């Protein structure tokens, strides 16, 4: 007996998610329209991102490389996408300053994307010829083999700045502690909640969760990019209202209101 094929065109259990997505898109387009009209987009100062410029300057003065670690995520993880966009900004600045950049990759597909983003950033900075082949290179897709290679590099080359951006797991403390021993200025950002305490302990600056995603817009300071952060803040306010309404409704004996947030 063959299993019955699903012929439905919509999954009703995901209606709430679709509404949320449409709402987010509306917030996004409203804020982009505001940005195009010249409305000011305030974004609170993020110490960790402001410190990137300082770290790159320090590396240039010391004549030592900048180590950029994009995490262990693959291309299906948003943290990796954020790592690629931040690398693009960092690479453009290292190209302008003329300081060495080292990017060891974990996932082969992500490494290819990172290499392409870094190369293009050098070209955009007008320093395409100074992009060194092997700046972004694949190391290993084995967690602790990757850790061994990177910590070995840290101890031998003593980079002046270590920038950790992306999805990190058990290796976060190995990398950050080794970097701490070498005396490098360390800036970390991850969307893995369980690894945040390790980065907070071992790094000079840590970007908490969503700050990682805001980094690219923050570093670029382009109005349309900043508008997306404003849209995110509006969505956060909407989420807070939904949570409060759900709590009040449940307390008043209407738990079905809270259950509207459940998905299939």
């Amino acid at each position, binding site marked *: 007996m063959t299993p019955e094929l699903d012929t439905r065109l919509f999954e009703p259990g995901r209606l709430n998610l679709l509404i949320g997505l449409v709402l987010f898109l509306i917030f996004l387009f409203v804020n982009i329209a505001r940005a195009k009209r010249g409305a000011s987009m305030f974004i609170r100062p993020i110490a960790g991102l402001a410190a990137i410029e300082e770290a790159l300057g320090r590396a240039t003065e010391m004549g030592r490389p900048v180590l950029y670690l994009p995490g262990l995520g693959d291309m299906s993880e948003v943290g990796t996408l954020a790592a690629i966009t931040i690398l693009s900004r960092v690479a453009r600045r290292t190209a302008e300053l003329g300081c060495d950049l080292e990017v060891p990759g974990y996932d082969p597909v992500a490494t290819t994307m990172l290499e392409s983003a870094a190369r293009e950033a050098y070209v955009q900075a007008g320093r395409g010829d100074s992009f060194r082949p092997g700046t972004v290179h694949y*190391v290993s897709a084995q967690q*602790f083999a990757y850790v061994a290679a990177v910590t070995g590099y840290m101890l031998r080359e003593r980079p002046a700045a270590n920038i950790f951006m992306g999805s990190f797991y058990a290796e976060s403390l*190995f990398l950050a502690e080794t970097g701490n021993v070498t005396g490098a200025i360390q800036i970390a950002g991850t969307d893995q909640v369980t690894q945040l305490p390790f980065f907070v302990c071992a790094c000079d600056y840590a970007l908490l969760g969503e700050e990682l995603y805001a980094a690219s817009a923050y570093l670029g300071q382009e109005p349309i990019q900043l508008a997306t952060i404003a849209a995110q803040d509006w969505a956060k306010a909407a989420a807070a209202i939904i949570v409060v309404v759900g709590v009040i409704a449940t307390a008043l004996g209407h738990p079905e209101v809270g259950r509207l947030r459940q998905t299939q």
Partner: protein
Amino acid sequence: MRNGPLLVTFFTGALLVAFFFIPHHSAQKMQSVMLDWANVVYAFALILGSITLWTVHQRKVTSRAPGWAFSVVTLSALAFMTGAGVLQGVEEGTLVNRFYNIANYHLVSTMFALLAFFIASAAFRAFRARNVEATLLLVTAIVMMIGRVSIGEYIWQGFPALTEWLLDVPNLAAKRAIAIGIGLGAVSTALKIILGIDRSYLGRS
């Protein structure tokens, strides 16, 4: 052609978002095919990655760069494991499988065991009572450590309940707040890339 990558990103991203809401068997089959394509891309990228790995380390060896001896080990291991894998496969009893179990498995375990020392050194630095926040962290950590071991209950019966409260109320509230921010940030980042608002992954402004 300059906008080719943006169009590919837009159509692929939009289709995958749509497939999440469409349970129709044809849509799910197409999604599965697209995920298979991702695996094919991954296989080619792995070859490309191995070539760059070889090139980078070969350059280090030929120029006698600092630590070039490690590069010799890397190149030898890469050549040996690739050759053995191609000739014999990777099944139980083959050279690749035996070397994986004899060398790699134990090296990974050793590395993982080192984590305990890294945790101790990080904790020592984090738990110094330099200001109010650090003192609060120190006190919470002490309560947590005592409350999670059996002797804690002998010292004071309330320790286990206190640790549970710390985990389930202030800790969980903070974690959920961060998780909501991450969730919204992830959606925002994905939409920025799908819609072509953020092109910095292509190295463009």
